[in-house]
C-alpha cells in the first residue's frame, strides 16, 4: 500500500507540451506511472511520445481528458499566470487529486482555488511542491526516482531537495519508503502535514514516518499535537532554518519568520514536547528511524 497514489493512479499532465511538463512526463512514464493523457489547450489531437513506445493522447481540456481516459489524478506544470485556473479546471473535471508543481502562483488566487477544491472534495497537493512518489507504484511530480526504494517509511516534507537528501540517506541504508510526499513551500497549500500523517497512520505498510519541516507558520506545531493525539506509529522530525534570520523570506514563499511565530526553535520544541525525536543534522534522520523501528 501507499498514500494518495499507487498503481491505480491514472494521471493526466496539464501543460504536457511545455518544457518542464514534457521532460517530467517522460520521466514519470519511464518510472512506470500510468500517464493516460495530457492537456494543452489548442493541441488537442496530438500525441505525447514517451520512452519505450509509451505515449499519451493530448486533449484541449481536462473535461475531455477525464471523460475519454478515466484519469483520476492530475499534475500541473503550467506557468504561474495560468496555474490557478488550471487547478480550478482540474478540480472541476472529476479527478480526486491535483498535484500542483508550479512555483509562484499568486496566493490570493490559491485562496480561491482551495475553496473551490474544498467545495468539490478534491485534494490539492501544493502548489510549489515536488509532488510525490510511491516507490514501485507511481511517481507524480519531479522527485528523482533513482533515490527511492520500496519499504516501510513514510516521508512528508515542505522541501524538495532536502527531502531528496533525507530519502537518499534512508535508501542508502536499505530503508525504503511507502510514499514520499512534498507538500510544498507556499503559504497556502492544499495538503498539509496533518493530512499526510493521517493517511500514513492508516496505511498498513507504513511503519514509521519522517516529517521534515522548516521555518514559517505553525503547521509543524499543529502536526506535532496531531501526532501525540492520533498517530500510533513512530514519527521522527527535522526542521530546517535554525540559522534563518527573522523577517526574511528564505527562498520558499512560506519560509519566513514573522514576529515570534514560525521559528525553528519553536517547531523543534513542539516536536520534542509531543514525543517526536528531532534530528540535528539530515544525516541523523536515518539513525532515529532505525531506533524507532528497532
Amino acid at each position: 500500500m501507499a498514500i494518495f497514489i499507487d498503481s491505480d493512479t491514472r494521471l493526466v499532465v496539464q501543460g504536457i507540451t511545455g518544457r518542464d511538463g514534457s521532460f517530467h512526463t517522460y520521466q514519470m512514464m519511464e518510472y512506470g506511472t500510468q500517464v493516460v493523457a495530457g492537456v494543452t489547450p489548442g493541441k488537442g489531437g496530438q500525441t505525447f511520445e514517451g520512452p519505450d513506445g509509451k505515449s499519451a493522447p493530448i486533449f484541449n481540456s481536462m473535461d475531455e481528458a477525464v471523460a475519454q481516459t478515466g484519469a483520476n489524478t492530475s499534475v500541473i506544470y503550467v506557468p504561474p499566470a495560468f496555474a490557478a485556473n488550471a487547478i480550478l479546471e482540474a478540480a472541476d473535471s472529476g479527478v480526486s487529486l491535483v498535484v500542483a508543481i508550479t512555483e509562484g502562483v499568486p496566493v490570493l488566487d490559491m485562496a480561491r482555488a482551495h475553496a473551490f477544491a474544498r467545495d468539490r472534495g478534491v485534494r490539492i497537493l501544493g502548489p510549489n511542491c515536488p509532488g510525490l512518489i510511491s516507490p514501485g507504484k507511481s511517481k507524480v511530480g519531479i522527485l528523482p526516482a533513482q533515490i527511492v526504494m520500496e519499504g516501510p517509511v513514510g516521508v512528508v516534507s515542505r522541501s524538495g531537495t532536502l527531502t531528496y537528501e533525507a530519502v537518499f540517506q534512508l535508501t542508502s541504508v536499505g530503508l525504503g519508503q511507502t510514499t514520499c510526499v512534498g507538500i510544498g513551500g507556499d503559504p497556502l497549500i492544499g495538503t498539509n502535514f496533518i493530512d499526510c500523517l493521517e493517511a500514513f497512520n492508516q496505511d498498513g505498510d507504513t511503519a514509521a514516518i519522517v516529517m521534515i519541516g522548516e521555518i514559517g507558520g505553525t503547521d509543524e506545531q499543529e502536526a506535532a499535537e496531531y501526532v501525540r493525539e492520533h498517530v500510533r506509529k513512530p514519527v521522527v522530525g527535522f526542521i530546517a532554518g535554525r540559522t534563518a534570520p527573522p523577517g526574511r523570506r528564505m527562498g520558499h514563499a512560506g519560509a519566513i519568520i514573522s514576529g515570534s511565530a514560525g521559528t525553528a526553535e519553536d517547531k523543534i520544541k513542539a516536536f520534542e514536547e509531543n514525543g517526536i525525536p528531532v534530528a540535528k543534522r539530515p544525516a541523523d534522520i536515518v539513525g532515529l528511524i532505525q531506533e524507532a523501528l528497532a
Partner: protein
Amino acid sequence: MDIHEYQAKERFRAAGIPVPPGEIATTADEAEAIASKYGGMVVVKAQVHSGGRGKAGGVKLAKTAAEAREHAFNILGMEINGLTVQKVLVTPAEDIATEAYVGVLVDRKNQAATFMVSAAGGVDIEEVSHSNPDAIRKLTVDPRYGLLPHQAFWLANFLYDDPGLIKQASKVIAQLYDSFVESGASMAEINPLITTPSGEVKAIDAKMSIDDSELFRRPEVASMRDSSSEPPSETKARDAGLSYVKLDGNVGCCVNGAGLAMATMDLVKYYGGAPANFLDIGGSSNPDKVVAALEIITSDPNVKSILFNIFGGITRCDDVANGIVEATRRIDIKPPIVIRLTGTNEDLALEILKEAGFSAYTSMDAVVEKAVQLAKA
C-alpha cells in the same frame, strides 16, 4: 516585497481610506519646505522596511519647519536595523482621541485573508494576540464572497461604540480589504487607525507587503520596489533569478532548493562556522546562474570559503560544474571553493571538476565541515 509607508498610504488613498496628506523628502531642505507648506506641527518619519522606527529615533514631531529640517537632517542617513534611511515622509500631525489597530493578512490555517482588529492601537498586534487574545477580534474572509458589509460592521463594532465612528470604520475596513486585494498584498495594516477629537477616523500609519507572485500582473505595484534600501547583492540576485539573503557569517553557501539551503546553513553552524548567506540557485541549472551566484557571494568581503551543496534532481550536476568552471575563468575568486554534487549527471560533473582542478565531496556533512575549517584558516 515590502513597500514604504508613503507608498502604502498612496494605495490606501486610492481605495478611499482617509489618510492625512504627506510628502517625501530626501534632503533636510525639502523636509523644511514641505513643513512650511503645511504649517503647524508635522511628523517627520523615516521610510525604511523595518519595524521599530519610533524606538530607533526615526519618527519625530516638529513644531516648526526649522525643527522639521533638523529632524530630517538627523534621520536621513540614519541606520535602522541595518537599513539606511534614504527618505523621510513629512506629514501634518493629527490630534488623536483614540488609537486602534486594523490589519489583514493571508492566514495559512484558514487558507484565506484574515482580519485582526483591536481597540488598542499603535501596538505590536502579534504580541497582543499572545498576551491578551480577547483584545483582538478576528475574521476570516471567505474568498468566495469577499468581505461582506456586515462583517466589516462586526469588526468596526469591536472598535467603537459611537454609531458614526462604527460607520466610518466599517467603510475603512472594506476599503482596506479592497486595497489589499487590488494590490495583491499578503499583508496590509493600519496601525494606528485614529479617531480625532472631532470624530473623524483616519489612517495615520500604513504598512503593506506584496505577494511577490502578484508582481508580474501588477506593474504599478511592482514599480514601487525600492532597491536603494536593500544590499546591492540582493538586487543583483533577484535580477538573476536567485533567492539570496545576506547574513553575517563567513562561509558562502550555494545550494539548490530552499530547504536544503537552510539545512546547509544550519550544518555550517553545527560544525562551528557561520553562514555568510542563504542562496538557492533554484531548480534550473543554467551555468549563467551559477556564475551570477559566485559573483554575488564573492562580492561579500566577509566570505572566507565557499561551499556548493547540490542535490541533482531537475538540476543537472554537470551544468553546475560547468558554471563553477566558467565563473572561475571570468572572475577572480579568492576564497577556496569546496563542492558536493550528487544526483543527476553526477559522474559527468565530477569529471568536469576534476579536469578544472577541483576536488569534490560526496556527503553534505563532509563538504560543510571542510568549508568551516577553511573559513577558520
